[in-house]
């Protein structure tokens, strides 16, 4: 394997590790805030203790997950330096806002939430708990603005003098932060975090019921966690629908790979598993029209006409335009000081072809095809597990409401099994999103092989295995601390025997 593959594996591992902590942070934040709200409204000490227990688990997850995202920024500078320079102007603003918000909002309100039970009023404490979660959620938005821009690079123009994609105006900044891909990614990611939090709370509570412990706490937690998981599942489906439409519009190759669709057309069928299809469903999901046109991999390679009647060039044509753009860029940089007139002409050619500039780096059209099998199956894991989780959350809420869940061992065990499944589901979603857009670091503009730094394979391998060891160690510590805290259980107020 070459340095590009090792760097990609290292980045993928770091991002996947980071995503183990983020969704639970987002989901548990909502659960504990709801429980504390009930405490403040009802003034019932039980809900305070229940909230404190989930805050404790939130704190463990937060402590181990904190700053894992910063390692990604190390890798940007070391492994992906060309990419970092190329996107520096555009990434600067959202990542700076994210850093400031993450630091000031989360650090400030987390401290009040964690240390302030006896120092501030219940309402102030409640506000701090909500603001901790809201701070984490807003942080996620800025990260996903950066990610969304890589998938659909809007609002920026390529500056051949600096060799960067730059935001030229306040309007451009608005285009970047309102990028439809970023918006749908944000709702999809945050709501998947709610599902993770809900499933975690329900699963842990189910374990108490199986052990015959903390029955009231477990039943109430299943209700709150289950409703959060259920609402999250609904929001994931809605935002997933929106993500599908955006993929069809901005990244049709990703959608074609996710469907294993070699040849597209109107009224395209959705493949549940190979050989089992729902007629016209893919067209409906991609275009909201049962007869909408969905291009397959071969159509994208050869060129096609989209639903709006626009002719999309073949990849071969895009490669030609990309090479024209790169030649013009080289000429512009060579002549800009010595021959301004020729440089201006080269600049004009560059501007006319710049949207395909990245294609100029490809050696053959098939380079734009991502690993179809990986994306296809990851997509099915995500959807299949996601639907199972929604069903389990529904059953959990229903039977907890009816106060029957305590006797349903199969359902209790199923909810526990759902804890690892929700993580597989979330990771599969990121595999679809990121592997599905290969070979691009920035869609159409910069492929991975040009984004990479000049590094030796050995150096990347060394850091990869160091990370693997460090990450495994911290994950093992977190799981051990979490299990210890769960075994100890909540410190609930003693209730009268007849309660």
């Amino acid at each position, binding site marked *: 394997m070459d340095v590009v593959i090792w760097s990609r594996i290292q980045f993928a591992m770091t991002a996947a590790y980071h995503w183990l902590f983020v969704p639970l942070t987002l989901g548990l934040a909502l659960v504990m805030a709801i429980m504390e709200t009930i405490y403040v409204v009802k003034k019932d000490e039980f809900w305070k203790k229940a909230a404190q227990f989930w805050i404790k688990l939130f704190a463990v997850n937060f402590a181990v997950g904190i700053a894992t995202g910063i390692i990604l920024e190390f890798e940007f500078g070391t492994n992906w330096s060309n990419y970092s320079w*190329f996107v520096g102007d555009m990434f600067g603003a959202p990542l700076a806002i994210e850093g400031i918000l993450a630091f000031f909002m989360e650090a400030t309100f987390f401290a009040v939430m964690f240390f302030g039970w006896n*120092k501030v009023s219940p309402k102030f404490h409640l506000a701090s708990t909500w603001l901790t979660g809201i701070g984490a959620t807003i942080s996620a938005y800025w990260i996903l603005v950066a990610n969304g821009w890589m998938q659909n690079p809007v609002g920026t123009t390529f500056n051949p003098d600096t060799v960067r994609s730059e935001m030229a105006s306040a309007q451009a900044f608005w285009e970047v932060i309102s990028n439809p891909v970023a918006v749908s990614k944000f709702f999809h990611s945050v709501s998947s975090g709610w599902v993770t939090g809900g499933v975690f709370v329900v699963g842990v509570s189910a374990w108490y019921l199986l052990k015959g412990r903390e029955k009231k706490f477990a039943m109430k937690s299943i209700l709150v966690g289950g409703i959060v998981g259920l609402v999250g599942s609904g929001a994931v489906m809605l935002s997933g629908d929106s993500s599908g439409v955006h993929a069809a519009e901005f990244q049709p190759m990703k959608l074609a790979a996710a469907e294993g669709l070699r040849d597209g057309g109107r009224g395209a069928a959705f493949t549940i598993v190979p050989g089992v299809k729902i007629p016209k469903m893919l067209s409906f999901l991609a275009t909201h029209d049962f007869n909408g046109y969905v291009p397959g*991999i071969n159509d994208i390679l050869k060129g096609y006409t989209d639903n709006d009647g626009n002719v999309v060039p073949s990849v071969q044509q895009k490669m030609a335009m990309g090479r024209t753009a790169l030649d013009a860029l080289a000429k512009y940089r060579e002549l800009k000081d010595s021959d301004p007139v020729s440089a201006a002409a080269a600049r004009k050619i560059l501007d006319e072809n710049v949207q395909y500039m990245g294609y100029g780096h490809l*050696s053959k059209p098939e380079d734009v095809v991502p690993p179809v*099998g990986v994306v296809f199956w990851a997509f099915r894991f995500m959807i299949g597990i996601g639907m199972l989780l929604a069903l389990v959350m529904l059953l959990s809420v229903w039977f907890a409401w009816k106060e029957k869940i305590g006797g349903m061992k199969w359902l209790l065990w199923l909810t526990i099994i759902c804890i690892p499944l929700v993580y597989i589901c979330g990771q599969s979603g990121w595999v679809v999103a990121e592997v599905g857009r290969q070979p691009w670091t920035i869609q159409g503009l910069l492929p991975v*092989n040009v984004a990479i730094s000049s590094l030796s394979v050995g150096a990347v391998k060394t*850091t990869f295995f160091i990370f693997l060891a460090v990450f495994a160690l911290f994950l093992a510590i977190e799981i051990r*601390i979490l299990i210890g805290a769960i075994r100890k259980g909540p410190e609930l107020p003693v209730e009268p025997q007849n309660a």
Partner: protein
Amino acid sequence: MGPNHMKKLKTHQPFFWTLYRDGFRNMTWGRPLVWLILLKLFIMFAVLRVFFFRPAMAGLSDEQKSEQVGERLTSPAAIATTGTASPEDSQTQFSLTN
């Protein structure tokens, strides 16, 4: 300085200072977590960042960085392996789904 004066001084300490100070002092199960965070930050910033993750363009001016990336973008060597599926791989993978 009498005890009353000390008490008065203490009440003038900033809220967030006392919040953090008393919070850390009274920690029970959270104490290992703080050590865990400090250990992790040490590994990240004092070991990994210093010895393994030196930015590839550290020390270059913005002009030099532009020049270097511009060279990379326009160099013929930029046309290399992309790490994506070969046509043969793609055909094999298609057979899974069609």
